[in-house]
């Protein structure tokens, strides 16, 4: 067994150690944020009660926007870095490099889209709303 429980030993320093630490710290934060999100949205509420009006009410203040924004950034960076680990294990150069670049590009694009929506969303009044 290597220094870490997974297939990879704990990095000794540099960017890789930062990434290793980030996965663990963001992991604990996401445990609370993501499971909390699932519990609120899919147990206390459900897709049967979630609609435009629900989201508009939820995003009337800044708290849930901040919650969602924190969760989005941590989850995306955690997920993309996790997939990079898989690319390291299962792909060989030059495919690996291209895959990781593509992954970064797509991840950044979705992260920007999500961030923009959470910050810019302003509910429309009237049409479609009771």
């Amino acid at each position, binding site marked *: 067994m290597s*220094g870490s429980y997974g297939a990879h030993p704990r990095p000794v320093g540099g960017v890789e150690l930062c990434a290793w630490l980030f996965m663990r710290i963001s992991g604990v934060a996401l445990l609370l944020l993501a*499971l909390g999100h*699932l519990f609120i949205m899919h147990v206390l509420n*459900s*897709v049967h009660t979630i609609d435009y009006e629900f*989201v508009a009410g939820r995003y009337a203040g800044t708290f849930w926007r901040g919650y969602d924004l924190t969760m989005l950034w941590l*989850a*995306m960076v955690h997920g993309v870095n996790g*997939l990079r680990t898989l690319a390291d294990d299962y792909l060989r150069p030059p495919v690996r490099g291209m895959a990781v670049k593509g992954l970064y590009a797509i991840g950044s694009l979705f992260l920007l889209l999500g961030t923009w929506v959470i910050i810019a969303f302003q509910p*429309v009044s009237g049409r479609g709303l009771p």
Partner: protein
Amino acid sequence: MTLYKGGIGQWAWIAHRVTGVAVLLFLFIHILDTALIILGPDWYNKVIAVYRWPIFGMLEIGLFAAVLYHALNGVRIILVDFWMASIQYHKQMFVVQMVLFTLVFLPVAWLMLGHVFP
């Protein structure tokens, strides 16, 4: 390349990777569906209504299972990482983890099934 040495640890680790990729895939989809909110109620409500189909309700329960497993298994990884001595108990830790998983998953799945089939 990765070496497979067998045992519970191997399967726990493969499941960690599979659930991780599945949750990331859903995150991409979820960013797209939520982004529709910016286009107004017609678009958003139309697409969210699709999630009310029972098949998506079942997938939603699967998503919860994936997140819960990944979270609990991640905690076990962290415990071993920062407390190497615990590695000799990793099988017992996995049993505890799966007991916790079952204790949380079953009531939550029951409640979520109530939403899927009211």
